[in-house]
């Protein structure tokens, strides 16, 4: 376990290094920072002097090292717009985004497992065909369209749900979350459904096809020959094996979902990181863009590590504890 975490940490450092180079290059090439800092009245000579003073004319490596040194200490620069440390601005919006991702994940797990399993067990039934049909349609509808459709139906026509915002957020164990209040929960419904709608069809199809394959296996036949009940065969023997590849894919997809929040948050005016990122791009607020990329990279690394740990617990042929 310890060796595994050390190995993971080493990998994480490499990944974060690559992300930092990419984000730094973006920062370096995204327009002239001086345009944001000074007005039009400043002459070209004064600009040059300021560039020298800020170190913008130093060689690339030198500038990167300076950036990296600050970054390691948690300083990703100061947001031009908010005049606050970029990392702090991003992290303040993180809970809102995690609310969305968490809610969407619950929806995905809650629906994909039973629907996928059902479609695998009874592939010829009408419900299975409906589910598979809807999932094909679901995969091909873009997120913003789903979002607008949901808002039109449930907010405007029916008036059941708020169409934008996060509502009132409460606190659970000192963590700021919309799950803590009824108002927050109501605000979460539509954005979470929207976010889940991208991944849900994929997971239903994945679970169905994996499960169908597992049901053909010798050990499932043997379980039947042992006289076990169908419930035990489907939900223990088959499902446990089905979930192995699903967990692996799931880890990557949850990371990807963080990126998809940009669209969802924009449509629903959800005050999260993705919404902030889009604003930062519009304002050419480079330190904020860089901070976003680095935080998302870190989330990716963390979720994948957790998923690998879970995978190790489910699959006995993977040894996390001890080993060589």
């Amino acid at each position, binding site marked *: 376990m310890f060796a595994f975490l050390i190995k993971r940490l080493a990998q994480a450092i490499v990944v974060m290094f690559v992300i930092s180079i990419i984000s730094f290059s973006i920062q370096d090439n995204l327009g002239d920072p001086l345009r944001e800092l000074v007005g039009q009245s400043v002459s070209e000579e004064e600009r040059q002097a300021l560039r020298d003073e800020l170190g913008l004319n130093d060689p690339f490596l030198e500038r990167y090292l300076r950036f990296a040194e600050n970054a390691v200490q948690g300083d990703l620069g100061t947001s031009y717009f908010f005049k606050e440390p970029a990392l702090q601005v991003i992290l303040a919006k993180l809970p809102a985004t995690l609310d969305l991702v968490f809610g969407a994940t619950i929806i995905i797990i809650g629906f994909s497992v039973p629907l996928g399993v059902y479609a695998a067990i009874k592939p010829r039934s009408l419900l299975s065909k409906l589910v598979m049909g809807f999932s094909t349609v679901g995969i091909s509808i873009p997120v913003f369209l789903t979002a607008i459709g949901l808002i039109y139906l449930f907010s405007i026509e029916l008036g059941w749900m708020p169409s934008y915002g996060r509502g009132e957020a409460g606190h659970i164990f000192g963590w700021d979350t919309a799950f803590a209040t009824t108002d927050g929960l109501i605000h979460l419904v539509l954005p979470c459904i929207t976010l889940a709608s991208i991944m849900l069809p994929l997971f239903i199809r994945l679970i169905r096809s994996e499960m169908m394959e597992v049901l053909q296996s*010798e050990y499932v036949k043997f379980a039947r*020959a042992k*006289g*076990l*009940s169908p419930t*035990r065969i489907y939900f223990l*023997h088959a499902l446990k094996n089905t979930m192995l590849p699903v967990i692996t894919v799931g880890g990557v997809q949850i990371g990807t979902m963080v990126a998809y929040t940009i669209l969802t948050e924009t449509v629903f005016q959800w005050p999260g990181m993705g919404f902030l990122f889009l604003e930062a791009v519009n304002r050419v607020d480079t330190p904020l863009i860089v901070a976003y990329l680095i935080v998302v990279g870190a989330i990716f690394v963390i979720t994948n590590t957790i998923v690998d740990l879970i995978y190790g617990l*489910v699959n006995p*042929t993977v040894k996390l504890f001890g080993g060589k």
Partner: protein
Amino acid sequence: MALLDVKNLEVSFGLRSGAVKALRDINFSLERGERIGVVGESGAGKSVLGFSILNLISQPGRISAGDVRFEGKSLQNLNDKDMRTIRGNRIAMIFQDPMMTLNPVLTIGDQMIECLLAHRQISKAAARKIALQKLMQVQIPSPETRLDQYPHELSGGMRQRIVIAIGLLMDPDLIIADEPTTALDVTIQAEIMELMLELCERNNVALILITHDLGVVSQVTQRTMVMYAGRVIEQGPTNEIINDAQHPYTQGLINALPQMGVRGERLQQIRGSMPSLQAIPKGCAFSNRCDYASERCRVIPEFTRSGGCLVACHMVEELVAQSENKAQDGGA
């Protein structure tokens, strides 16, 4: 009353191109404690026969005619719940490849105990005790540790012993073993076969041994059925079939075996290969590969009694008729 009685069993698979019959006219019965071998090439329908007894044929296969009776009770009309009280309890099955038979994500103990709990109202601790006892019966070293291990931690031979132990858990009356040694190494094969023979004899368990290894059949079984293209073509006492096969196909199988003491000669093989079930020749299915085939083979042969065996072959039928005539002439 026979333990198992299979009557006119027919299994067909509904394919898009129409139904294909994987088994036709299978008739045999098995007494308590009796061991019967089912031999034939791949695709002859041996495994389907094994699965059809437990009503476990995979889709789109189904029993389309005939009946399987276990202790006089038809298994065909049982609902799924009643069928489960037979599976693993009264009739156990052992599969071919022990690498694939055990669930990779469950411990050996879980896979044994669940079978006991499915059939008996006992505590987990009591079930574990029985599991341990059965592991000892199949001569597994340090059985206590094995219960908590996963399949991948054990060798192939060891896993097959565990599969056999699972088969024995409920002290069944009949074990259907589908090529139990094919996937194992030769030295292990002999050990496993010996173990199965010993366990069957000791507990008076009937055995249906499905295999393509005539050597194993002669070592273990009292009776043998030879199958070809979904039909039984010859059945009788094992020693008669091995030493004096009547059907040209059985003769071909036996001639194809390597023999000790015969050196430097090529093995004889049966020419051609078994037809697909959709392209079986009219009449005797073997006629297109048979050296003795003639016009009469266009008609499906009936069983003829020859010695202790039943043989489905026109040539054997004629030979038997001739010798009977001779005997009558000689007597007159």
